[in-house]
């Protein structure tokens, strides 16, 4: 639960920045090199690299080498912590059942 919250925080922080969000959305259309991304946005190449590093730290993007180029792409599992409903509801019901047990103990017979 704690680990999940941290992963979620990192994803939110990474995507809270409009430039990073735009880069991430652009990558959902297919993999791209830093140079390609620099051409798509009014952002300097070092800034694009920095944004990509942040997206990688958040697990949203990964990269592979293709000859002399490094291609960035969306990590398919990256957003999973945000929509992993199974994990969410397992934690939810476990906690609620504990509350139900406490309530039953308090209630009149």
């Amino acid at each position, binding site marked *: 639960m704690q680990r999940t919250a941290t992963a979620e925080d990192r994803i939110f922080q990474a995507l809270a920045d409009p430039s990073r969000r735009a880069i991430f959305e652009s990558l959902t259309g297919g993999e791209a090199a830093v140079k390609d991304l620099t051409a798509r946005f009014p952002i300097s190449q070092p800034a694009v690299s920095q944004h990509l590093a942040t997206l990688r730290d958040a697990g949203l993007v990964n990269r592979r080498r293709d000859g002399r180029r490094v291609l960035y792409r969306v990590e*398919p599992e990256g*957003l999973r912590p945000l929509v992993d*409903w*199974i994990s969410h509801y397992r934690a939810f019901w476990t906690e609620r*059942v504990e509350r139900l047990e406490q309530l039953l103990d308090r*209630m009149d017979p």
Partner: protein
Amino acid sequence: MSVNDTTPKDQTDRVSFEVALSHPPEKVWRALTEPALLAEWLLPAFDFGLAPGTRFKLKTDPVGGWDGVVACEMLAVEPLKSISWAWVVGDIDTVVAFELTPTDGGTHLSIVQTGFAEQQKQNWGGARYGWRHMGAKLVALLDGVA
């Protein structure tokens, strides 16, 4: 008293719990069906009713871009034995079913929530559509936060 999470590890379409309660079914039933008691362990309920078809809401604090509302509709009620209702958060459309069985020491309570599969398929199919869909939802979510 013990709660046993019986959700299989690789499960993608349901969560399930088996709970041994040291209280009689009548008492557990009240906790499941009286709004004042529901508020104490589950969530505050609004317009709650036991007639099948009754639409009601469970409300919690807004989180992120979610307004904290669970939209519900009563589906089936068998007093002291079982109750189930639709549990909808955004486009996550699930059903929660509670079943009570009397035991020597009290009540065996089963909780099963089903219906995640289709949603997960939509989000995780790996198709580009799925990513675009998620991207748009995320933007809406993040705009809500900002």
